[in-house]
């Protein structure tokens, strides 16, 4: 049966995420991440999440820092040029008994893994990984968990010989089969059709591969309106379960046509996340105390939101300065 799309509040939507769930987050590094959904995961104190962003950005660093995640199968965690993922670093550096276990992948193999999940296949082949430490069983940091945790494949990868053509060695990578897919997009129809601008990244595959799909959007629009231009729609409603209207739901990451990256957020977050104590303060001040998404947006303030506003044609804000070491102040409390 086609999923009956339900329109829920942010709180109701994230209440459907269970402790221990494997969670795919849409977007790419510092662009179009489902930050509003992720903040609410932190507020609802979800535990033992198994993350599979491809690649991960501030949403992953945040979930690790807030103690929500115990496993990640991810090719990259970072804030791109803004700075380093200090929560992630702290969780794995020189740690005897890490609270977070990290399995390294690559962009291509991560893409193929979520695509395999979308295809209902147990694996897909790749020519990548050959020659890298990433491929070695001795470098498989989840090896001891593989036969215990049913959300993990029994092996990290397998190698077979091509039986059809030149006989080269081909690497097989296992499917990702997330429980939950979290996306933030520009528009979603009231029956679940998703329209994304400026690049879909792997959001489509995450939606088709995951058991529960939660989409937050700047606007929920009448489905008929989206049917005027089917070529511009990105994800069919077939697999969308929950829709949430959430303006600024990707902040501080960029949303094509709506708002740009928030350099002030990254400056503050990077400074705070260098130490656990200052990060806990930051989390309290920016995520917990505001109480909900409206409180968070209120706290950012209109002046700051205005400073981030994108040119609707260019997709970004052509005036914003992004160099953190010379950042000038703007409003916001």
């Amino acid at each position, binding site marked *: 049966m086609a999923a009956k799309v339900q329109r829920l509040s942010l709180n109701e939507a994230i209440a459907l995420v269970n402790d221990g769930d494997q969670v795919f987050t849409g977007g*790419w*590094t*510092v*662009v179009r991440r489902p930050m509003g959904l992720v903040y609410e995961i932190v507020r609802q104190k979800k535990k033992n999440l198994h993350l599979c962003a*491809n*690649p991960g950005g501030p949403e992953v660093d945040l979930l690790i820092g807030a103690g929500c995640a115990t496993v990640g199968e991810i*090719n*990259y*965690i*970072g804030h*791109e*040029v*803004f700075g*380093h993922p200090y929560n*992630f*670093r702290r969780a794995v*550096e*020189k*740690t*005897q008994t890490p609270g977070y276990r990290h399995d*390294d992948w*690559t*962009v*291509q*193999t*991560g*893409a*193929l893994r979520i695509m395999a999940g979308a295809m209902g296949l147990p694996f897909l082949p790749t020519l*990548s*990984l*050959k*020659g*890298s*430490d*990433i*491929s*070695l*069983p*001795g*470098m498989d940091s989840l090896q001891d968990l593989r036969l215990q945790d049913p959300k993990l494949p029994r092996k990290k990868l397998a*190698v077979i010989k091509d039986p059809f053509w030149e006989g*080269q*060695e081909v*690497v097989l990578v296992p499917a990702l089969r997330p429980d939950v897919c979290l996306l933030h997009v520009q528009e979603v129809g009231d029956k679940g059709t998703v329209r994304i601008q*400026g*690049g*879909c*990244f*792997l959001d*489509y*595959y995450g939606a088709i591969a995951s058991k529960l799909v939660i989409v937050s959007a700047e606007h929920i629009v009448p489905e008929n309106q989206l049917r005027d231009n089917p070529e511009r729609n990105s994800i069919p409603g077939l697999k969308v379960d929950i829709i949430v209207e959430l303006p600024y739901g990707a902040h501080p990451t*960029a949303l*094509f*046509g709506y708002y*740009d990256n928030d350099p002030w957020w990254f400056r503050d977050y990077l400074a705070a996340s260098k130490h656990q104590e200052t990060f806990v303060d930051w989390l309290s001040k920016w995520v917990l105390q505001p109480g909900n998404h409206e409180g968070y947006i209120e706290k950012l303030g209109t002046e700051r939101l205005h400073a981030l506003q994108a040119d609707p044609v*260019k*997709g*970004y804000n*052509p005036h914003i300065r*992004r160099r953190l070491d010379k950042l000038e102040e703007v409003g916001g409390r």
Partner: protein
Amino acid sequence: MSNYSRLEMMAIAGARLINDGEVILVGTGLPLVSTLLAKHSHAPETVILMEAGLYDSYPQALPFCVADARGVYRTPWIGTAVELMGQFLQNKLVDVGFLGGAQVDRYGNINSTVIGLYGQPDVRFEGSGGACDIAVMAKKTIIIMAHERKRFVERVDYLTSPGWMVRRYPDGKLIPRVEAGLWGGPYAVVSTLGVMKFRPQTHEMYVESFFADMGVTLEEIQQNTAFPIDVTQAKPLESPNDSELNVLRQVVDPEGIFMKY
């Protein structure tokens, strides 16, 4: 002294390695700065790809990451990592992969994962992203990174992106790249001191040119390289011309995000 920085010289040296018309898959930061400099000067027909799905990008402002709206604006088509990395790259349509890294060894193997032991690292980096894929599958790779002894190492702490001597599956023994069934391979390393290439037979790194007009000496390169490196064929690199400096400063990175003016 010169009126330009080593960072600028490095970006310019990187740009000069790009030939017009090449299809180039490029990472954020210095690789993108060099590539845009080439695109805005001698290589306008270059097709710039980024792993998030960007195709034939010709940004009017410097993208901050490989998914930045600045890189999307007025591209003729938008894909995803499935097409860019799983099709164009794997199907050998990418001429040049342009990468950074934390460590490199004499064979052009790159580490962008950890310093120290993988299981209990001293320093953890962001991870491969698409770097491993690009190093495995581009027709050639250009590497760009600061020239320091702790970066130009005898042996990388973790082999993220395969160069000319790579890991055999599953035992991890280092074997020549071709024996692992890989095509492509590292073509050059551009650093803050000069440009290194690889010997055709041994695939060992040597110094091809150095930033002599900035006071760089061959001894300085050797001191900042933790493996023996042949400098006997090194020539001074041609100084940046005004056009290169102007494009870099006024068109590519006017904010100094990467060039840190």
